[in-house]
Each structure stands twice: as C-alpha cells, then as structure tokens.
C-alpha cells in the first residue's frame, strides 16, 4: 500500500526541498524551530537544517520586516504566520514595505509569507479568517491558494523561487483532510488555473478548500443529469481570466464560490471580469456564493452554516441550471 501524504506533509516537504536546494532559504516564525510549528508544518526541519530555522518573538510586524531586510541582502526567507488572522499585525510590513520595495527601488523582495487560513470547526472569529482578498487588493503581491496536496507542494516550492513577495494561503481544514499517494514531479506553473472537473452545463470557479466542496457538489448533481465544470484558480493573484473565460464559453453559466466574506473579493473580481469581458458568453446572470458577512462563528452549528457548504453550492448551482 502506498504511503499517504497529507497536505501539511506536502508543505513540510516543500520547505525541506527549498532548504535543501537553495542555501539562501531560511525559516522564521513563532514556534517553528524545535517545536516544529503550531500545525507541525516545520516538524524536524530545525534538526535537519541546523542554523536555518529560527523561532521568532510574537512580533508579526518585526517578523516580516526582518524578512524584507534579509531579502534585500539576497536571502529568501519563509515566514510562518501562526494563523492567517495574526498577519494583520504584520500587515503594514507586508503591504507597505514588502509590496512596494521593487516598485520604488528596483530591488526585488523574494519573501514567502505562509498563512494557515480558513475555517475549521471551533476556531472562532480569530483563528478562521480568509485574507486572500485583502492581500490580492495590493499591488506588488502574489497570492496563492493551493487546493490539492500536489499544488501545496509544487506551488510552495515555486513561491520560494519567485522574486516577489508571495502570500501563500494554506487551508487549515485541508491540512489533514487531503491525502495523496506521492508528491508530484511536475506541475502547472503559478498563474495558471486548472480544470479540476470537466463539464458542459455550468462553470463553478473556486479556490482552496472550496474546490473540494465544489467537486462534491458537482458529483451530487450528476444523478440529476447535470455535468458541472470546476475551475480551480490555484492562484488568486495573478488570476487566470483566460481559463475561466474559456470554461464559461463552453458552459454559458458561471457560479463563483469563495470562503471569504462577500463584500468585494475574489468571487466579485471573477464575476466582474467575466461580466465586462465575456458578457456575450453568458446565458444567464453569473452568481456567487461566499461566507456570511459576519465574523467567523465558534460553535460548529453556526460555523458550518457560515461558510458555503456542499449543499449550499449544489443548491446555488441548481438555481442557475434551472433558470
């Protein structure tokens, strides 16, 4: 029986690969050294790579500032935010320091900031947030949202190699939920979306954990005679409009699903682009589905209803398909 590799194993292995491959790479974050990280994404890396993995004080601002300085000096730091939610404390350094450096000076800023993000039951308002939208809004940042074990691995390796600041959004629910038999040896490049499921009746655009929900919803619709195409964006910035548009050209219908809050955001961006550049491709008005416009709740009953569920995605799809 093949060994099982989880999404978080893939993230650990990608960091090991980067450390092994490139002497300029180092890890800096809270509890990442001997302890191996709050989620164990850096387990044993301090032992395997002595002098390359460092615990930081609880200082998100200074963590990112240090990474920018190290990048100026030619290194390639990987910063682990313990939870994406806490990256707001380092927000200034990310959006004003890291994201403006190349534009202002011509000196690139190759830092990778890992954000364990997204809801898990019991996480509550401050350990569950999805912040891809807010980072994608700022010029100068690349924002990645892998939905599979394979992408978690290959996209993190690529993130470290990219000469610009990368916000790497890794979904906490997927950490131990997704498994693969082996790590990939080749991958689509960053910036290319993937057709996760082929279909002719409706395009569902999703990213990160919502890709899994969209795929399940698509399966649920098969007995009803619908074949739904699922596009996994993989990276929300840059956003692969071409792949989305080509899919909508085939299906004529669009549903965009995101786990983040509804105002603005990735789903709104996708719909805006399709509506303005591909209006003629649409048979019916495009729709989107997001979390509710409240902080993320704690209790499982509330939490499960806050984010789009498989059922909610299937219901939204049915509504479009029957219109």
């Amino acid at each position: 029986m093949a060994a099982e590799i989880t999404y978080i194993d893939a993230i650990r292995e990608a960091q090991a690969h980067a450390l092994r491959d490139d002497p300029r790479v180092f890890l800096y974050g809270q509890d990442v050294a001997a302890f191996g990280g709050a989620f164990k994404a850096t387990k044993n890396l301090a032992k395997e790579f002595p002098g390359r993995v460092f615990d930081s004080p609880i200082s998100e601002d200074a963590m990112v500032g240090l990474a920018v300085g190290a990048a100026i000096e030619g290194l390639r730091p990987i910063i682990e935010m313990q939870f994406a939610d806490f990256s707001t404390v380092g927000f200034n350094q990310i959006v004003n320091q890291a994201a403006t450096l190349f534009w202002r000076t011509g000196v690139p800023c190759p830092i990778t900031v890992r954000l364990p993000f997204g809801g898990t039951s019991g996480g509550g308002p401050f350990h569950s947030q999805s912040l891809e939208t807010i980072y994608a809004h700022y010029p100068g940042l690349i924002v990645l949202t892998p939905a599979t074990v394979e992408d978690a691995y290959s996209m993190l390796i690529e993130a470290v190699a990219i000469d610009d600041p990368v916000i790497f959004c890794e979904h906490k629910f997927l950490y131990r939920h997704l498994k693969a038999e082996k790590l990939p040896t080749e991958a689509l490049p960053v910036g290319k979306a993937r057709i996760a499921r082929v279909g002719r009746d409706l395009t569902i655009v999703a990213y990160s954990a919502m890709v899994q929900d969209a795929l399940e919803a698509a399966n649920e619709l098969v007995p009803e005679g619908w074949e739904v195409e699922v596009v996994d964006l993989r990276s929300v910035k840059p956003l692969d409009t071409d792949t989305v548009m080509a899919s909508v050209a085939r299906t004529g219908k669009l549903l965009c699903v995101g786990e983040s809050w509804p105002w603005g955001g990735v789903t709104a961006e996708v719909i805006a682009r399709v509506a303005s550049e591909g209006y003629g491709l649409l048979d019916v008005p495009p729709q989107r589905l997001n979390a509710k416009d409240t902080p993320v709740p704690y209790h499982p009953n509330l939490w499960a209803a806050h984010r789009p569920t498989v059922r909610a995605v299937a219901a939204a799809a049915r509504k479009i398909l029957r219109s």
Partner: protein
Amino acid sequence: MLQAATEPRAEAADDVREAHLAAFRFMLRARLLDDKFAVLYRTGKIHGGVFLGRGQEALSAALGVSLKKTDVFAPLIRDAAGRMAFGEPIVDAVRTYLGSALGPMRGRDGNVHRGNPRTGYLPMISHLGAMVSVVNGVLFARRLKNISGTVGAACLGDGATSTGAFHEALNQAAVEKLPLVLVVADNQFAYSTPTSRQFACESLADKGVGYGVASHSVDATDLTACLKIVGTAVAQARAGHGPQLVVAKLLRLCGHGEHDDANYIVPALKNSPLGRDCLKVAEQFLLRQKWAEAATIAAWRREATREIEEAVAQVQREPAPDPYVENWSAISSEHLNETHEQNGR
C-alpha cells in the same frame, strides 16, 4: 617609550579634530541643501512636502561619519547630513525632490523617501518604526552569510517610540543580539504633539533598559557630544555588544514640514539651551579651537552653495518620468502580472 606613549594620543586628537571638521562640513552642506529645498518649495518647484533637518544636523552628521560605507543605514526625514556622510550624492537628493526620471526613485517615490538598498542605504516608508526591523533583517542575513563587523543604524523621532513597530523591532534586535544602533531624535514634538502627550517615562533612554539594550543619552545641540556618544554606540555595536539605543535631545528648528509654521513651539523653548542651533554652536567651537578659520568656513559655504546650485540646475534639465513609457509593473516577475483588460497595462 615616551614617544610611543604620546604618539597615539596625538593621533587620537587628530582624529577627533578631523571627525569634527568632516561632520561640520556635512552639517553645513545639509543646512544649505535644506534651505534650497525650502526655497524650491515656496516657489512651487516641488510636488508634495518638504521636510528639513534644521537643528538635527549635529546628531545626523555624527551618525553618518561614524558609519562605514559597508554598514547599513535607514535614515528618517531629518537626516540630510547623515545621508551625505553615508555617501548620498547631493544630486540624488535633488533628483528625488524634483522627481527626476534619472534619480534613484525615478519619480515613483519622492522627497525623503530615497535610498539605494543594494548599498545598505534603505529608503524609508512613511510608517514610523517600520524600518528598524528591516535593518535587523539585513544584519540577521549578514550573520547567516558569515559577514561580521557591520553595523546597522536606524533613525527615529520621539513620536515613533510610541509605535508597536519600534517595540517589536528593538525587542527583536535584543533577542538576536544584533549590531543595531537605534538613534532617537527627541526633538520635543511629533508633528505638533509635545512629548508630554507622547510618553510618560523620565527619558526615552529608559526604554532601553526594558528591552535589555544599552542606552545612551546625548545633547544633540553639541557636535562634540554627538560624535563621542554616537561614535561610542556604533563602536559598541560593532564590537559585538548588541543593540544600542541613543536618545538625543534637541529642538526642531522648523515645522514638521515646510507647510507647518510650528506656531505651537513656544518662545521659552526656543530660547532654552535645547533651542540652540547646533550648526552655530559647532562653528563657534571650531573657531574657538582654531581647528578652522572663518575664511575657511566661508569658503566651504561658497563651495557647497555652488555644488547645490549646480545640482539643481542639472536636475531641472533632466527628464521627468513619462507615464507612456513607464513600466507599470509592481512586481519583478513580469510573467506573473495580471493580463486582463482592466488592469491598465
């Protein structure tokens, strides 16, 4: 034996005199350059604000001459003297204020937001305290690369000591024992806010104690004191004694920017010892010591004025940035830019 014993002392005295003369010339040039920027501002030649270092030149120059070219320097808005001492050509300062396409910031950023990160000269962002951890990062990286003996200096005002970024970065430098010299110019006002509304400790130097960082206090109206104290702090950091906090007291002899008449600075403060003009104090000291003659100082002044006028004339002939040839890419990986129709590219 006697010879051997006296020679080093004589050399040291020579060094002290030379350091004073070098620092004074940077102070003078910075003051004259600032005066020129004020004129250009009032005649509408500069877009946006102008921020002067009047009253802070002794501190700034003392830091600049204490650093080596291989060190790291993150100046703040009132550091024209230190920037020059660290090696910034006058023409680059003028280019940034006038937005020349040939300047280090190419019109993308302006005024005091200038630098050259590749040479350790870091361009500030406006968010106070944010540059300190970036200096830490350069020093941390150099340690990983086994480069030793370099110092990183970051400059702040009293207002910036109230930011979280200051706290996080000073603590980080202490934890990592980095060779950071953090120079705080306590100039009595953060924009218009007096220090009584900024902090409640006796002296900002007390803050060093809380972080386990060596603290130094200095009267920044006195060049001699600045050279001695800042020089000591830089030497201590270079020798591996960890981060050093220097708190310098002075009065800002201008508004926050040239748009600000600073009517909130009361005459009693201006007439107090803090209100002394460090440039005049230093000039009188050099004359009294007979380290420079009045005619020599006048010649330096003429020379600097000519150099500044030439730089301004040159930059005014240089091209402005052209929005039609501008590469509107905020990232270096151009293949990862957005390609859809509405991103303006």
